[in-house]
């Protein structure tokens, strides 16, 4: 396939005014080997069909806006080159397991509500937060405990890859649990006990069935499966300790 040829994009579309009937629509766009799939979508939007609806922003796989299913796999459209999709056709659908707002735009509210529910923020010690004029110390080894989990861009590809989330939407899911682990593992954090209830609940770590697709699709190399396992270990340990030593302080 050479530049200037046409490549076909088949897009699964849906509009709330036609709720019963999603439909497939095909677009022929000019092929350029080093164009991204996002650029092909922008060409459609600008020149062919202004009604095609999708999110995008940074173009460099850091803002997490442009996730969609590409040939059945969750991907960031800005991160895929047409050369890797040639000769097509390319099949585009909204991210699996989410309610659709319109076309490729999914409703991310469920995830946004899970973030505070898992305590996805650092809770500094009271004296540390009150004295913010100088930075505290944290060694590279201490950073390494949590650093890879801190790379999560909240793009939700892992939720689309997760069969358990598809079956049971109240499962906290890979990214939220990775962000829980990220904060639990930070030497500056004192919020672990507050996260415990969410972690140990039925919708928490024990819902994960260890398939590992989340880790395979992550565009940032985060390993949510490892984070969840780490949380399972902590959850099991706490369970045993609580049986043996009721009322102990953590």
């Amino acid at each position, binding site marked *: 396939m050479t530049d200037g040829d046409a490549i076909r994009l088949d897009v699964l579309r849906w509009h709330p005014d036609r709720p019963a009937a999603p439909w497939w629509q095909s677009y022929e766009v000019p092929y350029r080997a080093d164009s991204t799939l996002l650029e092909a979508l922008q060409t459609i939007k600008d020149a062919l069909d*202004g009604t095609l609806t*999708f999110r995008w922003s940074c173009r*460099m796989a850091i803002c997490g806006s442009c996730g969609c299913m590409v040939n059945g796999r969750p991907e960031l459209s800005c991160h895929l080159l047409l050369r890797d999709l040639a000769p097509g056709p390319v099949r585009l659908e909204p991210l699996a397991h989410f309610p659709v707002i319109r076309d490729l735009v999914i409703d991310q509210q469920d995830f946004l509500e899970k973030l505070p529910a898992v305590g*996805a923020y650092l809770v500094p010690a009271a004296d540390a937060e009150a004295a913010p004029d100088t930075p505290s110390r944290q060694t590279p080894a201490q950073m390494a405990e949590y650093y890879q989990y801190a790379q999560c861009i909240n793009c939700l590809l892992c939720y689309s890859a997760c069969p358990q989330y598809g079956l049971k939407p109240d499962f906290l899911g890979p990214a939220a649990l990775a962000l829980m682990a990220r904060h639990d593992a930070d030497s500056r954090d004192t919020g672990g006990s507050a996260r415990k209830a969410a972690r140990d609940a039925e919708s928490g770590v024990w819902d994960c069935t260890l398939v590992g697709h989340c880790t395979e699709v992550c565009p940032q190399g985060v390993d949510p499966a490892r984070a969840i396992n780490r949380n399972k270990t902590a959850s099991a340990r706490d369970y045993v300790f609580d049986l043996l030593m009721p009322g102990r302080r953590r």
Partner: protein
Amino acid sequence: MVTAQTPEVQVIDCDLVIVGGGGAGLRAALAATLADPGLDIRLVSKVVPMRSHTVAAEGGAAAVLRDDDSFEQHFEDTVSGGEWLCDQPAVEAFVAACPRELSQLERWGCPWSRQDDGRVQTRFFGGMRVQRTWFAADRTGFHMLHTLFQTSLRYPSIRRHDEFFCTDLLVDERGLAGVLGVDIAAGTPVVYRTRAAVLATGGAGRVYAHNTNAGIVTGEGMALAGAHGVALRDMEFVQWHPTALPGSGILITEGCRGEGGLLLNAEGRRYLQDYGLGPPEPWPRPRAMELGPRDRLSQAFWQEERAGRTVATPQGGAVLLDLRHLGAARLAERLPMISEVARRFLGIDPVATPIPVRPAVHYTMGGIATGLDGETTLPGLFAAGECASTGIHGANRLGSNSLAELLVFGRAAGEAAAAWARSAPARAGGSLQRDAQAHAQHWYAQLTGDRSAGQPRVAELRTAMQAAMEDGVGIFRDADGMQRACQTLGELRARYSAGLALDDHSRHFNTEWLSAIELGHSLQVAETIAHAALARRESRGAHVRRDDWSARNDENFLVHSLAYCDPEGPPRIEHAPVRLTRSAPAERSYGGAGARVTLD
């Protein structure tokens, strides 16, 4: 014609609205709720906060940390870097607040890169005499934004309205009274009736074709303020980042050069030595060669391209950013994201091959004129971050001052707006609601434009605007080119007012409609840039002319420009004095003999 009725505007009462959920908006929201936990604060943004453009900042944030640094040196680097167009009281306040703000972020969890003993690591950026840039690998903005966003989740008094597109500010006789916009998913109009608002809407890089900015950086916050007579200050000063990918404009951080990266032309020569930045030494030297300021480096590229000494790429000429000598381990530790960007988008491994780069528009130095607490001339309206102009950047911003800025002035604006909201009287009903309905009517009418009357598509006018800016108001400028741009932009304003053709007449998540609204705001901002540039008959910092005004002129132009928008015509340009305290304007020099420094 398609007809559309305007839905009834929903009214929500609150104390403070923050428009924009990037670094400045989140920092303002946190400051406001920490200062006054009882306030009802609404954080509205056209994207979910972690999608904001702060996320794409790479290299780092400046604050005095090392023993060999001082506030005086941060001040001197900033003021000379801005070619004395900086407001010096603002710079003094800024440099003194940076360490506290970056430390606060550390306490909230930001993973700053560390030294072996656990202290925060710093690196060089251009125009600095000391290693002053705190960084989190080359994902600094990402980590700062997520730290702020996650911290905001601790405070339920910050109530978010994600994917809310702000269209207008509403005022009454006492000042700011409401923030009107569209709930994007539902497509319904909402007005927040409020006592105060903070604009934290980012820059306007998307008025140019080649830029490092996210698609959302369309400048509407500036136009929202400009519509109420608030001056846009120093808009002619647009920063080209010297190292972006040809074509896409994706940013390759200045941190590459801070870590020792070299810039080579097609002949393999470190060409910056030919532009007053030498001599070339084998080691990195502060304020010289590759560690010169962005304006000088982008101007040097422009000369090299004209002289035919760039490397041809399918998307224009390029110079080569050589990182090979840094080695695989350092690239993986300090520059992992740009290494991945090079591999993914160019198929190049920077360990083995130099990266082709060229300048692209990166930052809007000017913005909504504010004081040190973010206050504007409209009572109750505050602004912070890239959309604002506190006067700290002058004619050329130093790299890594903007991430620090959005914390320092985001906090100041948040605290001041909270105090204002507490003391201002509540706004009463009827007239605001009628005003909101009338404004909403205007935007909903735009939904009905179709192609039957031969009206242009959004992309057609946007592309024409971007081409006019690239052509007439570029790295080097002259009167003819700037006049041509002013003329074209005026014509585009008229065509825009005559109506656009939309394919999409639905209200639900109609991004074509939103881009049409954005374009109207972008055109206003583009005109302020072009007209302020034409009115500055000198060369200073990032504003360089090739005509009769190629020299700096302190006698007549050591002044800020103030652009006043006019929806029906070109903006009016005035000038106002620069506030100087302890640094008298002098020759701005980089390069020269210098001592070797050791990089940690």
